[in-house]
């Protein structure tokens, strides 16, 4: 062996020992400085992607233009005919038109709210508003009313009554009382059986006694009695018994002369014509998967364009 080979051979262990020393220094020593390893970041890097997307659906927003054009046709037609006739004429292959399409809780809520508000808005006094709740069994099925619906009425502010549907999140309506007060229910519970017989129970809150109680019932029709007592306009939900009216405490209602009010002598309140119609337009042969909070289900449904429009009444010749 030559001298240079010997030197090289001697260098090998030196290099290896140096390697060991080098490996044993560095991060291990600084690591000891960190006394709270739990707070160390455990992130060793970031991965970045572009989350853009594209979604398609076979649906044409231009349908709204078409519906608006058809509505203009209905409005022209209604100058000579009834709105019902005009709507029936407009149905074609693409769209199915209908006057109102509320079902279930929506139907119960809006029917009651409209009846109540119309009665409040009528300008006359010492009169009654009546709504018969009986429906044919076909209608009960069509409207999805084979159930019990519970409405809660409360007064969030003066002149306002908020009606909420229990178990139907977000479904509510605000009634403007125009300053009227009286026997107004705090709870309205309506149910139907398969024969179309309604069962309406009204619950009231007695401010003077501070108690909740159930009014007479079950009822098959709603009656509101508008009266003026000592120059104060009142509005009471009442029950008819023979030719008399009874308040929720089951007492016969008396007039100014302290005689029982006779229903046969009371006029119906004069409900103002609104000429505003609820319209539903269903796109035929098209379905999408969607959730509806009314039934709480995700399923295939046809989108229904729901809107209301003022349609001027037919002009008498």
């Amino acid at each position, binding site marked *: 062996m030559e001298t240079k080979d010997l030197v090289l051979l001697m260098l*090998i262990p030196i290099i290896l020992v140096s390697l060991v020393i080098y490996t044993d220094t560095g991060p291990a020593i600084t690591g000891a400085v960190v006394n709270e390893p739990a707070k160390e970041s455990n992130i060793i890097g*970031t991965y970045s992607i572009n989350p853009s997307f594209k979604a398609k659906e076979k649906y044409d927003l231009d349908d709204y233009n078409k519906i608006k054009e058809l509505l203009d046709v209905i409005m022209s037609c209604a100058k000579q005919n009834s709105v019902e006739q005009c709507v029936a004429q407009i149905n074609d292959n693409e769209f199915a038109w209908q006057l109102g399409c509320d079902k279930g809780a929506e139907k119960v809520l809006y029917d009651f709210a409209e009846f109540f508000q119309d009665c409040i808005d009528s300008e006359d006094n010492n009169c009654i508003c009546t709504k018969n709740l009986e429906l044919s069994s076909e209608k009960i099925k069509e409207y999805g009313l084979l159930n019990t619906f519970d409405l809660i009425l409360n007064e969030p502010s003066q002149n306002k009554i908020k009606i909420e549907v229990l178990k139907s999140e977000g479904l509510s309506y605000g009634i403007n009382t125009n300053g009227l007060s009286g026997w107004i229910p705090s709870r309205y519970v309506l149910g139907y059986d398969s024969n179309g017989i309604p069962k309406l129970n009204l619950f009231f809150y007695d401010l003077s006694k501070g108690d909740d109680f159930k009014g007479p019932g079950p009822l098959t029709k709603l009656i509101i009695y508008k009266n003026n007592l000592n120059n104060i306009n009142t509005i009471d939900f009442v029950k008819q018994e023979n030719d008399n009216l009874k308040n929720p405490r089951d007492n016969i209602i008396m007039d100014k002369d302290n005689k029982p009010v006779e229903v046969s002598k009371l006029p119906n309140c004069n409900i103002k014509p609104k000429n505003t119609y609820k319209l539903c337009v269903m796109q035929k042969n098209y379905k*999408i998967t969607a959730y509806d909070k009314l039934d709480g289900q995700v399923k295939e449904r046809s*989108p229904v364009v729901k809107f209301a429009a003022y349609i001027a009444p037919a002009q008498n010749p």
Partner: protein
Amino acid sequence: MKKSSLFFMPLIVIILIIVLVNLYIVLLEKGSFTKPIGSRQFDLFKTYLEAEKALFFIDQSAKYSLQQSIYELAKDGGLSEVYASDVLTSRETPFIPIAKKCGKFYGYSLWYEKDAVCFDENKVKLNLELLFNERMNSYLDDYPINIWLDNYKYEIRDSIEIIGRAKEPLKLDILKDERKEAVKKPIEEKIITKEGITELKEFTGTELCAKGSKCGLTAEAYQKLEEAQKLAKEKGKSLEIYSAYRSEEEQTALWGGQTPERYRQRFPNEEERRKYVCNPNLGLGECPHMTGKAVDIRFKGKSNSDMTVDDWKELEKIMYTAGFRRYTAELWHYECCGTERYNRAVQLEKETGKEVRAIS
């Protein structure tokens, strides 16, 4: 072979063995062998799979959101019912419907009143976009990892194709395998605001920042916020920021209608629009979020509408103690550290000797 070679060869082998054993022991002590070779690569691969899962989730969310928004739009008669409280930057009382012109008739959106036309068919696309964004946000908010909300610029093409172009990329942390959740610390960065260069603490993804939101504050404001969080924790609550620093570009985009809220399109009248969003051209006094010293805040686990009067009162007390002052028109908006509104509040306190927790 020479005699000397016979001596050296075994010597080298012995030294090699000693060195290798020593090396093994040292590396073992350092814990480097606790993980198999390639574990880091696997960590990266796992993150890639997470990203693919997130992309799939976003695609599916878009598909269902589109169907749901078509259904709801029809139910609402082509008009959308987006509430001011749902929009991060609403500047007036929450819960005001801001998209309806004539309201509803017993549940049905009015298209025509006796003397007014309430339906504009040209806004149907915009209304669909608003509804779609809302649905998309609710899906993305439910996803376990932090996906930005309101992060898309939408384009709606005929018969319908909706394209969502992301403004910000989706960033996923590559985590060490032994811990499942990211432990995040605020990152310091320098930004140039109208006031000059500012040190910004970016705390997106930390406990203080709402999921899906981007959060940044000046170092001083962040320090005060940490103090507020400490006070909240003492009361068993936790704070959540859902809007903090906004760059001039972001504020201009909000004002200019380039965000899903579409303020400019919905409120072409600037005075009307200023009720909901500030005009960045009117300076930092008008738009304090651009200073990095203003926050929109609530208690964690509650939306603005879930916050009770007592919650708001408690929040105000905490924030005041930590050095913030509230804007009177917004229960959720606080400022500190020398903004124009904050200075006015402090000045008023000096003059009157009374606490000024909120100022207009």
